[in-house]
């Protein structure tokens, strides 16, 4: 990964956002995200978490202030250069936003095709990634026929297929129970260890406290940064593979503290995928 520069991936300076003539939903937002960082974006429902994410993934223009993405001032960037920036940002949308008329395969392939990747390459990468998220048997299924958890994995796969430098996830644990939530978090942490910066918007404080990481807190439209409660994982080292495996192994029991009766439906959801979903080896093969 070419993240050798210390230049922030995202930088907000005095950013304000209002919808129409309404009050500012975001006021004087200042922060920057370093390469390979991991952040939680927290705040009550309606605090502007989604709005802030939308500013980062270039769905909106700020009403005021400066946003720079990968070192480029968005306001000064010609419109035709924006798609290239968007391709470096993977987004797991809150409501997934999968295209229902396309198969799982085509949904995940979308970012590659949009970027003009050769079809043979597309096939190779998408099949690998779908195997990794445990959806190999559902490649031709349409999203409406998948369960919520499966759709979520499709949407994550679509977000990371283009090897983004920044991954944004809006309430990825909103519709799943804690156990699934932790699995997803481990997935995001693994991506982060391999160099991707991650921002996860959530109001699940249980998760946030358990995992530590830096917090971006939104309150009344203002953003405060709170440092990690416990030291975040160090940057990847040559020995990372081994370490990651250990970590994953350590965590495995922790993530299943619930009684078997509760665990059952989750296991169903992950049928055939439990061994690959959290397996960093296959993740590394992919990346």
């Amino acid at each position: 990964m070419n993240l050798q520069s210390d230049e922030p991936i995202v930088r907000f300076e005095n950013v304000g956002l209002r919808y129409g003539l309404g009050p500012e939903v975001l006021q004087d937002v200042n922060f920057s995200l370093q390469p390979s960082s991991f952040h939680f974006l927290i705040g009550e429902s309606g605090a502007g978490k989604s709005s802030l994410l939308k500013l980062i993934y270039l769905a909106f223009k700020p009403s005021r202030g400066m946003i720079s993405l990968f070192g480029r001032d968005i306001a000064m960037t010609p419109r035709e250069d924006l798609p290239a920036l968007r391709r470096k940002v993977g987004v797991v949308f809150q409501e997934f936003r999968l295209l229902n008329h396309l198969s799982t395969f085509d949904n995940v392939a979308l970012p590659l095709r949009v970027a003009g990747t050769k079809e043979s390459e597309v096939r190779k990468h998408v099949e690998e990634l779908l195997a990794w998220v445990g959806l190999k048997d559902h490649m031709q299924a349409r999203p409406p026929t998948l369960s919520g958890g499966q759709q979520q994995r499709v949407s994550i796969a679509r977000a990371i297929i283009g090897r983004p430098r920044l991954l944004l996830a809006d309430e990825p644990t909103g519709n799943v129970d804690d156990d699934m939530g932790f699995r997803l978090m481990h997935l995001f942490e693994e991506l982060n260890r391999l160099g991707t910066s991650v921002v996860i918007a959530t109001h699940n404080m249980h998760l946030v406290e358990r995992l530590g990481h830096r917090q971006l807190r939104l309150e009344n439209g203002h953003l405060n940064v709170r440092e990690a409660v416990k030291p975040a994982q160090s940057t990847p080292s040559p020995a990372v593979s081994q370490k990651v495996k250990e970590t994953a192994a350590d965590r495995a029991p922790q993530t299943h503290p619930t009684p078997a009766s509760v665990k059952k439906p989750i296991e169903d959801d992950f049928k055939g995928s439990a061994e690959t979903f959290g397996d960093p080896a296959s993740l590394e093969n992919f990346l």
Partner: protein
Amino acid sequence: MKFLFIGRSDLALDRDAHSRFLPWLIAFMVFLAVLALAGMLILKEVAARWDHGVSGTLSVQISPTEDPTNDEVRMGETLKILAATPEIERYEVIDDARMKGLLKPWLGDIEDMAELPLPQLVDVELKSGEHLDTTALEDRLAQKVDGVSVDDHQVWLERLVNLIRTVQGVATLILLFIAFATVGTVVFTTRTGLAIHREAIEVLHLIGAQDTYIAGQFSKRALMLGLKGGVFGLVLGVPTIASVGYLARRMDGFLLPSMQLQPEHWIGVGILPLLVAGIAMVTARATVMRTLARML
């Protein structure tokens, strides 16, 4: 199976109801366009032929009297004046034999021309490019000769050519309207498509699709629908003009010289569906690009 230029589409455009009626509309428009264009090309030919064939000629007519000798004298005077007119290239008295031939369709075989009070006619051809003031010529002749008149065919020719030009203009207008209607229809269907697929388009946009990528899906679709409709319209239109041409040819080509399309005209007619499909494609593309330009 992936047909050469249908390719893969990320938007379910083929399932939209409006994409089923677009080929029909285009078929009708191409049908009308084929008729209008064929009519225009044929009339252009006819007008050119008539105009070319009749202008540059005039006829001088000397009304007959009881006295053949007087008629001879008047003819002699007339020819002298014509010979002295510099714009005239050539003149020829129409003799009895030719007169008989001209009258035959109406009067049948005439035994004795002298019994009929026929005027004497002189066929005059002007030097090419020269313009002759026919009234001045008529005045000069009238000073020396009684009962002479000059007919330069302009009255009926002008009316005829004007009529043809008008019909031609109407045909051109129809072609223009068809083009406008095609553009309007495609703009409308494309906007509907954009509205229906707004969510998918937004996802493509946020995923990093260039506007041209999204517009390409719409324009490809419009091209295919346009070709489909266009070929169908052509299939309807060609037999129609062919049968009109056939009926016209049965009229001995007397009033309607060459109601027939030339080979190069057939090419023009054949290009129509491609042209309409092309208009549909470009319109769809422009519509999508304009709409997307409003997104960040």
